[in-house]
């Protein structure tokens, strides 16, 4: 699954650690999501969506 997390984070000038703190996950989890190594759960995806005030499908896109 592709995502725009890194771009959205950079636009707000946030570090991975800051975003991790906001989402209550580890910095490693943010790093793995940004690199596409780990797909977040639905609750975490909704949390990301609420934080960036954007629909989920604008942040996460299916590879297919």
């Amino acid at each position, binding site marked *: 699954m592709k995502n725009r997390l890194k771009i959205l984070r950079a636009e707000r000038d946030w570090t991975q650690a800051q975003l*991790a703190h906001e989402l209550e*996950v*580890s*910095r*490693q*989890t943010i790093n*793995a999501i940004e690199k596409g*190594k*780990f797909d977040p*759960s639905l609750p975490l995806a909704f949390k990301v969506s609420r934080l960036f005030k954007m629909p989920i499908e604008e942040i996460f896109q299916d590879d297919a």
Partner: protein
Amino acid sequence: MSKFFDAIACKGLPARDIRNSNIVNMWALAWVTTLALTAFLSRYEWYSSTFPTMIGFVVHSGIGLAMFFAYKRFLRELDEMERKIQLDALASSVGMAVIGFSAYSILAKAGYVPELEPSYLIVLIALTYIAGVIIGRIRYQ
């Protein structure tokens, strides 16, 4: 090499997860201590009577149950990627234990190796679990 040490140190986990992990570690230490203590005391004749044996059984089992519930809570509240790593590692350790135990029992029945002791199984599960966690953390770095 730094990836390996980062994987062991579990740097960056939320404070809640580190606190829960320390609680599990303390119960695990107490559980291993009671196991070692009962193994040590079993050398003495007075310990083989019913009352001290039952005390040892109840204390060891009670601490084991506390460790189990602490680990369940740790997994439930854990960061979701770390939870996936832990569950993958648990699956590997259970799989290795079942395969290793059954393969070893064939050799033991044929007399090639000594009879399996429960401690071998605990060590095998612990080592494969630790290896699984470290490999998982490196994979997601």
